């Protein structure tokens, strides 16, 4: 592996480069866990069981993000996906009644499974076009116009050690402003839809 040509780049991205190309047993078990929980979420008749398994799915996903050096995304997935979404879903089903069926699993709708399989195959056919994980020749590491610019200049221009925050709050601050307003609008819209004037009393 020849890294001589791109010293500043590989310096910033060395954790990625050190990652062995290929799949380790740990990654494999995480992927299998996420796959199984995803399928079980759809299969369980009891909505409460589905929600609990969905939380486990989010937790597995957040570990995968963290494992692939995206701790910002992992934190968000753990806090929002596994934590707060689960609570919101639980609150929602608390207002409904459970189905009286005694079956533990839903009966499988084979035409739907067929469509899902076709969809997975279509999406999966693009997989070979992706670079391997940790491939030093992948566009994200060789594209000096965008990624390289942020990694090289973010600290000098913003003083932020976390380049993700530098991009979110400085370079792409306008987008983040829009996102924050969307969150605010979600709160206002919920008040409107539920016909209430106050969140608490």
């Amino acid at each position, binding site marked *: 592996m020849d890294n001589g040509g791109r010293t500043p780049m590989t310096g910033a991205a060395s954790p990625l480069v050190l990652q062995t190309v290929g799949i380790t047993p740990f990654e494999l078990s995480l992927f299998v866990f996420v796959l199984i929980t995803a399928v079980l979420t759809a299969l369980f008749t009891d909505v*409460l069981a589905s929600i609990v398994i969905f939380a486990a799915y989010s937790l597995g996903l957040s570990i995968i993000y963290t494992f692939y050096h995206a701790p910002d995304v992992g934190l968000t997935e753990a806090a929002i996906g596994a*934590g707060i979404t689960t*609570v919101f879903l639980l609150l929602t089903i608390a207002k*409904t*009644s459970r189905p009286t069926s005694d079956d533990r699993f*839903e009966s499988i709708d084979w035409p739907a499974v067929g469509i899902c399989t076709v969809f997975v195959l279509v999406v999966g056919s693009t997989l070979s076009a992706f670079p391997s994980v940790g491939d030093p020749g992948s566009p994200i590491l060789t594209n000096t116009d965008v990624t390289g610019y942020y990694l090289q200049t973010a600290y000098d221009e913003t003083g932020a050690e976390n380049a993700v925050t530098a991009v979110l709050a400085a370079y792409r601050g*306008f987008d983040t402003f829009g996102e924050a307003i969307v969150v605010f609008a979600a709160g206002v819209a919920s008040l409107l839809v539920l016909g209430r004037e106050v969140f608490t009393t």
Partner: protein
Amino acid sequence: MSTDRDDTDGVARQRPMYTESQVIMTTVKIVVPFVLTYGLFITFHGTGSPGGGFQGGALVASVVLMIAFAFGIESTRQSLANRLVVGLGTIGVLIFGGIALVPLALGGNFLEYTEYYPVLGSTLGLKQYEFVKYGMEAVEIGGIAFIVAGVLMGLFFLLAAGVTPPAADESAGAAPLSEVTATEDDQDD
């Protein structure tokens, strides 16, 4: 988990949603200070370590959620003023918008932190790039974290309305039960 399945019979469960549990209350009492500290840490160190206002704000909001689960949603609702929840969200928007718009008035671009340098540089004794750093932190802490924490708390109490018995006017939550069971029965076959 499935103890009340037989007696539902298409009618809402009569089991109270809140049961006072020593285990949950003790756990929450121990965990809450650490989660709150971690949430604030993530918020305040967004520029130096993973995380930021969004994740930190969500963690701070989850503290309220945990307390509500352990000590009862209605009692938590009563001790948390609506003014605080709404205030967090709106003040967040005002801070973020204010920090973003002032550079426009100074002749720069939207959210151009360095525009503050000629005005405040000598007063605060900061270098130009430091205005970007502290501007980002102000946006993360005073803007995003406030908005996310406020809105998530608010959504929680909105969704929780009617789950627990009291609050007189909240009996509307039980109305559409017959429709729900009907559609679910349809899916079963």
